[in-house]
């Protein structure tokens, strides 16, 4: 179906978009707490992030992903753990303040896919939870959600009025 008018949300819709963005940020922030360095749950028995990572092999969703986890991630788990911590803390931080929201929405899609491929077939998991995580990040990207009650809204025109590749990149990321 073709839209007849450009997307121009009302004041209420703008606040609702901001609320959704902040809610997604709090989801990431809440779940950073159990990515605990330096072990990230590696040990006997495995726990937290290490346990969930092994699920991608034990309850295989996608064969190439399970191979990647088994041969690349698990042998280098400490590096992987720090990368996950950095990514998820940044997702929470940047989505919360609404800065570079489109970039972080795309990173949220990527991380949601990684989690999906590791956890989808694990016992007692609800597959819609993972699909919804992917879909909400796509929606944050499509609406450029940081421009409503976020730093992107404050900085967007500022970047637009300044020349240079860096400002163009920042505007695109917002």
């Amino acid at each position: 179906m073709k839209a007849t008018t450009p997307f121009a949300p009302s004041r209420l819709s703008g606040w609702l978009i901001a609320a959704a963005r902040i809610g997604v940020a709090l989801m990431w922030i809440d779940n950073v707490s159990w990515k605990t360095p330096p072990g990230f749950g590696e040990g006997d028995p495995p726990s937290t992030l290490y346990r969930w990572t092994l699920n991608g092999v034990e309850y295989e969703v996608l064969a190439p992903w399970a191979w990647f986890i088994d041969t690349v991630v698990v042998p280098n788990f400490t590096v992987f753990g720090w990368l996950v911590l950095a990514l998820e803390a940044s997702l929470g931080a940047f989505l919360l303040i609404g800065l570079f929201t489109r970039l972080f929405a795309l990173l949220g899609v990527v991380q949601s896919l990684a989690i999906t491929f590791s956890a989808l077939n694990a016992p007692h998991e609800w597959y819609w939870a993972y699909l919804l995580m992917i879909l909400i990040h796509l929606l944050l990207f499509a609406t450029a959600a940081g421009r409503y009650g976020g730093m992107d809204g404050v900085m967007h025109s500022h970047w637009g009025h300044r020349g240079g590749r860096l400002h163009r990149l920042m505007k695109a990321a917002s």
Partner: protein
Amino acid sequence: MTTTHDLDRAALTFGLASLASLVFVFEGLDEFRFMTVGGPAAAIAVVLGGLAVAAGLTGIRVLALLAGLGFGTVAVLQLVATATGGDWLGGNLSTMAFWLGLAVGLLVIGTAPNVTAAAAEGN
């Protein structure tokens, strides 16, 4: 065009967000306790949040910069505390992520060039 007023309002919002995080002092929130705030972390939320509020109300941009630097520092300290198995800051990694967001936002505000509404209209 971004105006000074927009940036001040953003600083005020981040300060109020820091003060609002004091709700997470209450353990009774159970699964809705998205981050841990207690002891020194609560004091940090008040002092740095208050600094950001002051920056927003007065328009003194260096206060936002100081608050941003403060939040960045305590975010790193919280990471060190957790990684070394200590609980001396009273937060957790979720608190660290929250402070990281406030740090980035306030540093962007603190380093943004001053543009008045009149100047913006002139462009």
